[in-house]
């Protein structure tokens, strides 16, 4: 196990170093200067500004400076969007709302999804099952931004149940964005749990439990549900990816001051250091989640630990 984790950590660092290097040089070959109104400055003024951001150094020096800063958690300085602010601070200051809607969406989606999937599996081929399958297909198919704008139009604008946008009413403001983000985890969990439950319900130990006289609910919860739940950990990775991708558009739609909205804006105004910082932040987030999921899976399911430990 330790060897496996070590190997995965090495890969993680190679991947991250690659992403950072790639982003760095990509930003350097981008057309246009990161300095606003660069053409209007005199050569002397320009030199002063470039020296301020270290842009006058030769490229390799800039690169190693950046990579060293990265190791210490320093993502550089914002060039034109938040003049002179530290990128790490900008990202941290915007993490709250993003984390809140992301977490709420994930929680709501997984809990409802597990419920839907379980009911569907226990009442297989009834209208409950078909209904939950339809919800799952819709949840996987309809993009989060379409769903978010529908929620905003009907529940926000027409029925006036929740704030239409902005981050002013505390929890109430987070309801619609969280629902929009919850759709994909809900659908994924529902489909996954249904398939797993049906498989588990058909296995020998369930027949044995029935034979020894265990009640229906006891079998459903104590025997089937527990075993069906374990593999759900494997889809946590794709769910996290969907929440992150979704947050870019959902935060935009509901005007939430989070990292996603920030990222889209920085693309529009070409703030290189913010784009790079956020890209690296997103990558670290996703890569760490996938690593944790893989390790967790090995820890929880002994069958996997046995076979995975040797290799």
């Amino acid at each position, binding site marked *: 196990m330790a060897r496996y984790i070590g190997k995965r950590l090495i*890969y*993680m660092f*190679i*991947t991250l170093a*690659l*992403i950072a290097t*790639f*982003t760095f040089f*990509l930003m350097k*070959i*981008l057309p246009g200067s990161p300095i606003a109104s660069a053409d209007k400055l005199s050569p002397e003024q320009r030199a002063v500004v470039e020296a301020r951001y270290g842009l006058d150094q030769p490229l390799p020096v800039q690169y190693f400076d950046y990579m060293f800063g990265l190791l210490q958690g320093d993502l550089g300085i914002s060039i034109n969007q938040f003049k002179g602010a530290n990128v790490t601070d900008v990202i941290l200051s915007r993490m709250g709302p993003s984390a809140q809607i992301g977490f709420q969406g994930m929680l709501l989606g997984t809990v409802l999804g597990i419920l839907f999937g379980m009911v569907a599996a226990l009442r297989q081929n009834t209208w409950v099952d078909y209904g939950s399958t339809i919800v799952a*297909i*819709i949840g*996987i*198919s*309809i*993009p989060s*931004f*379409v769903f978010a*704008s*529908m929620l*905003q*139009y009907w529940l926000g*604008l027409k029925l006036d149940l929740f704030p239409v946008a902005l981050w002013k009413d505390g929890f109430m403001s987070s309801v619609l964005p969280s629902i929009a983000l919850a759709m994909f985890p809900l659908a994924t969990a529902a489909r996954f749990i249904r398939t797993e439950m049906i498989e588990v319900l058909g296995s020998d130990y369930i027949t044995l439990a029935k034979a020894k006289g265990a009640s229906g609910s006891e079998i459903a919860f104590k025997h089937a549900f527990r075993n069906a739940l374990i593999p759900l950990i494997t889809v946590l990775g794709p769910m996290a*990816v969907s929440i*992150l*991708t979704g947050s*870019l*558009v959902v935060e*935009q*739609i509901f005007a939430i001051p989070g990292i996603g909205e920030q990222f*889209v804006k920085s*693309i*529009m105004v070409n703030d290189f250091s913010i*784009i790079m910082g956020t*890209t690296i932040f*997103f*990558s670290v987030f*996703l*890569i760490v989640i*996938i690593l944790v999921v893989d390790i967790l899976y090995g820890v929880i399911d002994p069958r996997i630990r046995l076979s995975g430990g040797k290799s």
Partner: protein
Amino acid sequence: MTQNYDKLPQDAFTRIPRDTQEAEKISKPSVSFWQDAWRSLKKNKGAIISLILFGLIVLMSFLGPVISPYEPNDQTITHANLPPKIPVIENLGIMDGVGTLGGREVDLYEMKNVEQNYWFGTDGLGRDMFSRVWKGTQVSLFIAFVAAAIDMLIGVIYGGISGYFGGRVDDVMQRIVEILTGIPNLVVVILFILIMDPGILAIIIALTITGWTGMSRVVRGQVLKYKSQEFVLAARTLGASDTRIIWKHLMPNVLGVIIINTMFTIPGAIFFEAFLSFIGLGLQAPDASLGTLINDGYKLIQYQPHILLFPAVVLSLIMIAFNLIGDGLRDALDPKMKD
């Protein structure tokens, strides 16, 4: 029990001689893998309905801009922001050209003296939404299909080589894939879009740059599984070349998985194209895809919801149809699912 046999009418039975030839005879015509798959796919109502629906959408994406009397990019400012109006359906009280103006319901067609009908209404520049939606569908589908085809090609070749030759080649190739799959798709797509001129080509390249890794892993796994089986060994013993083994013996077995995988790449590509357009990194005006149309419509959601409605519905229908067809194909082609 025995006495009952005596009561049976003896003349109703004829004795059949034991015939070994007869026992070996196959009474039903043999069914090929693909016929069998089609048979079980036909039983899946959702997949068949989706297949028909998707066919209709593809047909409309080509016919739509043609049968509409207006060009997708023609602007008629006097006809701006008209709600949808369709001749027969208007009698039902929907799509009758009535919209709200200053809080009152009025027939905007009458008010603006418009004789023609715009089936899906018009946008803020007076462009016909009907032809724009179908033209956009065409562009979105084109991007998705080309991206999926390139993913498939690279993935199959890469995974095939890696799995078939194995050893050190496989080791090196798999380490590269492991690092590439570690990079989040979203990050790569956005970075590539940034350095290229926005347009169809940029989106396709961005989608395929790491998109093929999923396919390559699946193909490699399948090739690894089949190449050590007896029928491949038999072919090799008989002197078949590598090319022949790959094309004649491995490919037909791996094809099912390739098709299933592609069926799930296509909706993924459609989603990413729409996603990029929605955050402003997609096609540039006047070109339209479903994503840019949804983006345009979203800005006017409060006053002109119809501009968002139609592209959003078409996009959602395509995604649902593809997921259902993919599910159906997976059930039909996957031998493990057979009972």
